[in-house]
């Protein structure tokens, strides 16, 4: 095709219209208006595409394609106007060709889009749907408001309930803390759930240190912990309330006895979840009961001692005076064997009176006649009396003083009485044996007390008897003894702040031992 010669080769389209002005005008005007309308549409589409950012990209492309197609249609109408005067039919033909391609492409795309377009709801149905949505939203808002009101009310009730709970918890914990006794709770495996202040004081630890722990993890003495835990287990296994005595060391006061009431909890679903315990320190009460027993024993002995004193002092006084009279009668011969024997007899009779007097004044809580004494000298003196006749009966005696001076504060007569008693008992115990050996030893014990021991190699004391030996009216001597000697010994030694006990020897024989506070300890006390 010849692009340059087309203007000369063809005649303008106006010639076909015979240049008739009315027909020319109609064509030009119609084509111009169509072109104008066609050109305006792409601008509308471009604006639509630019402002609707939510378009899918394929729709976006389709819209642009549509705009191009419309614009090209517009151009063909412009070309129709131009060719009325300028015969550029080749240009116009190509323009139509391009427009045709764009038209076909647009049509194809649009037809493909029809099913999708069909799915689009109409504006009316959209409005109806929106209205329905709005109704639903209103109902939802109302429900929400109602819920908020109910929530507010429930929250108020909860707050009140919480306040009540808080109040009763505070009340309970105040009661638990204020109780002088121990209150605690443990779970099924013995772990601490709760402990009041009194409990923490006894354990000597703070709550975080024992929370969730078992007794064997926080009690100092493993044996005590084991016993306590065994008691807890028994309560939880049996499901029964139990009342029992337990011993636990107090950090300041030492071993204390507690009366514990232990209650299992968690009965509702038949599974025991743990236990609650209440323990009261009854150490003083027990001590008091023991002292009461001691006092009643002493007062019974006091009455007996008074009766004995009166009855025995009478003949003792007569003996003394008969002897004194006899000595006087001897005149110058009172230095002879007879005179000396009578004097010794008189001394012993006075001594017996003195013993009874001291014993009576002691058991009836009379005069306290404790004086500073040297225990070694006192032992020597008492032994010289107690050992009378021992050599004849074949007893080998040894007295060992590990210290020359054992300063004690005591009632001389009473302690002499104890020593004589122990030595006499030892000799009685060995009376049948060959090679009897008696050993008396004084010194200081490990804790600084003055101590004396009397050991024999007789038949010894069996453990069962040893426990009761210091009780009144317990005797191993059969008809020979009344069984009050050692009981009086214990009363005397304990009133001096000492202790007396028997150690059954491993081989044979027995060792009786007593301790007395030494002077230093008495001064310090």
């Amino acid at each position, binding site marked *: 095709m010849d692009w340059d010669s087309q203007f000369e080769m063809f005649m303008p389209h106006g010639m076909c219209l015979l240049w008739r002005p009315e027909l020319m005008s109609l064509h030009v005007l119609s084509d111009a208006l169509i072109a104008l309308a066609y050109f305006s549409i792409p601008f509308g589409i471009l604006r639509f595409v630019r402002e609707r950012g939510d378009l899918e990209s394929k729709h976006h492309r389709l819209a642009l394609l549509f705009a191009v197609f419309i614009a090209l249609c517009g151009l063909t109408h412009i070309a129709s106007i131009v060719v009325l005067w300028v015969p550029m039919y080749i240009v116009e033909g190509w323009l139509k060709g391009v427009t045709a391609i764009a038209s076909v492409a647009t049509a194809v795309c649009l037809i493909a889009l029809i099913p999708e377009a069909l799915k689009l709801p109409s504006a009316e149905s959209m409005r109806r749907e929106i209205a329905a949505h709005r109704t639903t939203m209103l109902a939802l808002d109302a429900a929400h408001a109602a819920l908020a009101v109910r929530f507010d009310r429930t929250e108020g009730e909860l707050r009140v309930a919480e306040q009540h709970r808080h109040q009763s918890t505070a009340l309970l914990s105040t009661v638990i803390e204020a109780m002088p006794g121990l209150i605690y709770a443990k779970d099924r495996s013995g772990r601490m759930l709760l402990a009041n202040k009194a409990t923490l004081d006894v354990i000597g630890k703070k709550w975080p240190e024992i929370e969730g722990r078992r007794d064997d993890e926080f009690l100092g003495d493993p044996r005590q912990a084991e016993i306590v835990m065994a008691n807890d287990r028994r309560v939880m296994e049996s499901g029964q309330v139990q009342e029992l005595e337990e011993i636990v060391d107090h950090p300041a006061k030492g071993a204390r006895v507690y009366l514990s009431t232990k209650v299992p909890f968690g009965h509702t679903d038949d599974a025991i979840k743990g236990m609650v315990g209440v323990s009261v320190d009854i150490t003083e009460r027990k001590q008091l009961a023991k002292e009461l027993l001691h006092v009643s024993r002493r007062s019974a002995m006091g009455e007996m001692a*008074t009766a004995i*004193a*009166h*009855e025995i*002092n*009478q*003949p*003792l*006084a*007569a*003996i*003394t*005076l*008969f002897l*004194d*009279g*006899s000595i*006087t*009668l001897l005149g110058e011969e009172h230095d002879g064997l007879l005179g000396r024997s009578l004097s010794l007899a*008189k001394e012993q*009779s*006075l001594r*017996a*009176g003195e013993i009874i*007097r001291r014993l*009576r*004044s002691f058991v009836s809580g*009379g*005069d306290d006649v404790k004086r500073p004494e040297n225990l070694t000298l006192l032992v020597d003196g008492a032994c010289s009396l107690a050992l009378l006749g021992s050599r004849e009966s074949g007893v080998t005696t040894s007295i060992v003083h590990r210290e020359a001076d054992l300063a004690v504060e005591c009632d001389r007569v009473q302690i002499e009485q104890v020593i004589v008693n122990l030595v006499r008992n030892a000799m009685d115990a060995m009376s049948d044996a060959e090679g009897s050996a008696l050993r008396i030893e004084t010194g200081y014990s490990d804790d600084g007390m003055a101590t004396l021991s009397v050991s024999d190699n007789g038949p010894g004391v069996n453990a069962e008897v040893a426990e009761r030996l210091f009780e009144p009216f317990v005797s191993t001597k059969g008809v020979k003894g009344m069984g009050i000697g050692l009981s009086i010994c214990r009363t005397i030694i304990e009133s001096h702040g000492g202790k007396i006990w028997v150690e059954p020897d491993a081989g044979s024989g027995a060792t009786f031992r007593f301790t007395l506070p030494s002077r230093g300890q008495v001064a310090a006390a």
Partner: protein
Amino acid sequence: MTASWIIHIIDDDEAMRTSLLFALQTAGYRGSAYLGASDFLAQEEAERGVLISDVRMPGMNGVELTRLLRQRGSTMPVILITGNANGTLKAEAMSAGANAVLEKPVALAVILAEISRVTADWE
């Protein structure tokens, strides 16, 4: 000198009476013994002497006897001798007018010393 004093002994216990009488005689005193307070009081005109009496006796006891004697204006020295002395009894006896309180058993030397002491004012 000692012989000029008679010792009146009151005790319900025979051994006690006999032994005290015996011992005092060996020391050169004369003595007379009574079973109880009423026995002694029956002797209207008791010789000048010293009274040694037990405290606990059937009938009137030693302290009551002493009080009675003092009420009657007697200045006779009184030594009470008891098998069951305690602080209360001693105080009671002294306030009743006893010159001494001794405890049984007691050595003769002690009794003699007390007799000398209580009679010293009369010598």
